[in-house]
């Protein structure tokens, strides 16, 4: 038994309860995947409500979705897909030890997320002006269906919760930028970037389901 072979230099980022960096990286990544499963089920509840009401009142969905602006919806879809690309590039930069590229890509992603929220803000205000509020505050009379308020309740819950996730994502990426500027990341250690990227892809994927389900009903 050679005592020395076990005494390896432990890198600073390696927590004492992990054997090595690989174990730490794998654990973090798996943890994020499991967490994403919970996110899918969280939104799954809303999708279930959507499906139930759609099967009960298919005509309501046809009528109500015309109130949603397909053009801005499409723009937002493009914006989010673009941000998924830039976050992937950020991870790539980290893997290649290009910290400057990492920071730039993160900033682009943050800006795209911000643009998404601005467009969403205008979409919401436009509806509020018409009196399209969720549930009991609904006053719009342009849709001849007694359950129109329910459609918009579901719409606001789904897009609202998704919006909250976008905001959380913006917060996480600003945190990453701060850490990256302090030199916390390198090709040897970029776990937070990797798992934030995973999270961001999920936010994107959920939108890719929301968009056709809400905007593109014909």
């Amino acid at each position, binding site marked *: 038994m050679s005592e020395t072979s076990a005494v390896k230099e432990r890198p600073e980022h390696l927590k004492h309860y992990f054997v090595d960096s690989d174990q730490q990286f794998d654990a973090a990544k798996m*943890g994020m995947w499991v967490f994403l499963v919970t996110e899918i089920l969280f939104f799954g509840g809303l999708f279930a409500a959507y499906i139930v009401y759609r099967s009960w009142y298919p005509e309501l969905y046809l009528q109500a979705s015309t109130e949603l602006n397909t053009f801005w919806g499409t723009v937002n879809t493009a914006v989010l897909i673009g941000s998924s690309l830039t976050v992937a590039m950020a991870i790539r930069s980290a893997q290649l030890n290009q910290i400057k590229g990492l920071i730039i890509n993160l900033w682009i992603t943050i800006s795209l997320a911000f643009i998404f929220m601005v467009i969403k803000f205008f979409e919401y205000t436009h509806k509020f002006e018409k009196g399209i509020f969720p549930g009991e505050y609904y006053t719009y009379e342009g849709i001849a269906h007694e359950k129109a308020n329910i459609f918009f309740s579901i719409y606001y819950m789904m897009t609202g919760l998704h919006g909250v996730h976008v905001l959380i994502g913006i917060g996480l990426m600003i945190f990453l930028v701060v850490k990256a500027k302090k030199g916390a990341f390198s090709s040897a250690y970029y776990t937070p970037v990797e798992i934030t990227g995973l999270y961001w892809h999920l936010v994107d994927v959920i939108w890719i389901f929301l968009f056709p389900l809400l905007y593109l009903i014909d």
Partner: protein
Amino acid sequence: MATTDASNIKRLQVRRFKPDESPKEHYLNAEKGLWSWLTSVDHKRIGLMYLASIAFFFLLGGILALVLRTELLSPARSFIDADVYNQIFTLHGAIMIFFFLVPSVPAALGNFVLPLQLGAKDVAFPRLNLASFYIYTIGAIFTLIAIFTGGIDTGWTFYTPYSAETSTNVMMMTLGIFILGFSSILTGVNFIVTIHKMRAPGLTWNKLPLMLWALYATSIIQVLATPVLAITVLLLAMERALGIGIFDPALGGDPVLYQHFFWFYSHPAVYIMIVPGFGVISEVISTFSRKTVFGYWAIALSSLAIAFIGFLVWGHHMFTAGQSSLASMVFSFLTFLVGIPTGIKIFNWLATMYKGSIDMKTPMLYAMVFLFLFTIGGFTGIMLGALVVDIHLHDTYYVVAHFHYVMMGGMVMAFLAGIHYWWPKMFGKMYNEFWAKIACGIIFIGFNMTFLPQFIMGAQGMPRRYYNYIDQFQPFHQFSTAGSYVLGVGFLIMATYLIHSLLRGKKAGSNPWGSRALEWQTSSPAPHHNFEHTPVIVNGPYDYHKPMSEFQLGIAHSHNGHHEGEKVDVETGTAQEKA
């Protein structure tokens, strides 16, 4: 130390490490002061903090139960008003389920035991673990605020539209439960990753202790079901705040949809509450029978089977609610299927005792109480799963009694078995065996006195959640109330001898039960980082036919963050400890 041969199998050279029988330094005294506890990321300390919290909530919920039982001594008003009564039964249910049962074995015992049984130094995400404890605390604070600002009177199921209309503080309570859900999710995520990624060398899936299989199955349910509860209570909160109307018929919504959402979580939640109990019982029965577990894979996989089928039976709470006959048939059928793996477990435990060397210590006594009470709970579950009989029994005291036999007779007894089993490992102290057995007997008698009459009055038609009742049920209610006092006395005795044990209990050795499981191969209380070496597993945790020397193997490690500069002297260590 590690060499690699041609077939890429890692070869480890191991030595025997006998645990220190009276350690001077351990996790309880490694750091001092209240602050060191509140900021600790040590899974053992977090487990103990959970233990203290759930003990508090068990006390609170228990006192509420005694108030309810006292009120029910007479058919009309005894000493509290109907509104107060309704709030108290709601709180009793919500507190016992969300703040005691759900975190009891996973978060309290599981946190303490899981890394020890894995031979890991901690869980995969210790800071997340601490965060989950604080999220639990914040959820609890919200609930306590709800109690003091209008209470809540909906029953723990929060059925709409009543919950959307009542003037009590449903909002605060549902937010509390929403927050609490995240604590449960984080614990689940942590356990799944830890079991996957942090097993000690040699600890393959087929040597995993059954406690961990049970925790693994539980974590899967927590991760898959809790988010649905979160979205459900969020929608309910939005219902009250914004009137979104998805569940409220007054606004065009559907109240039965709420029930589907709610039970999609809450039925699996019943398994979150009971499956970890199965794990404890497997450990206790094999240790005190000193015998290999019978049907290891049957027990391990039946936990997973229960977890998965458990997701598909939620509709059996709604046989009278107006779902289609076809749906009722499918849910009834699947409900019976869940009964089978549960039955298999009971037979396997019995077979484990067969030809064992049974030592009737307190944990084993609780395990037997568990077997008896849980079997009754299971059979009455079959009764309730039978469609036509359920129509008669639904929402009567029969359901109340069934639920208590499963949850209290099952889970609480398993929890008590676990507490008494791991107590020496937690605190390095023994409790008074005589008083522990007396308390167990009193609890057993009190429990049956309380809940057996409830089966009878339920079958006779006494509905649950009743403040007043018709006179014919009074003798049953009085007997039941008397039983609840006996039960209370039993828990009082337990609290006394456990506190006595903490203060001046006899010292416990590292392995007072002679178990082969890994957590007993380290000192009591456990060291700050669980093991002073890296344990290596050669035999399964129930291989009682192999000598103890094959269970204390490991490799010395010369790194562990907190002991920097400290050198492990392997040579003298082995020379001293070699068997």
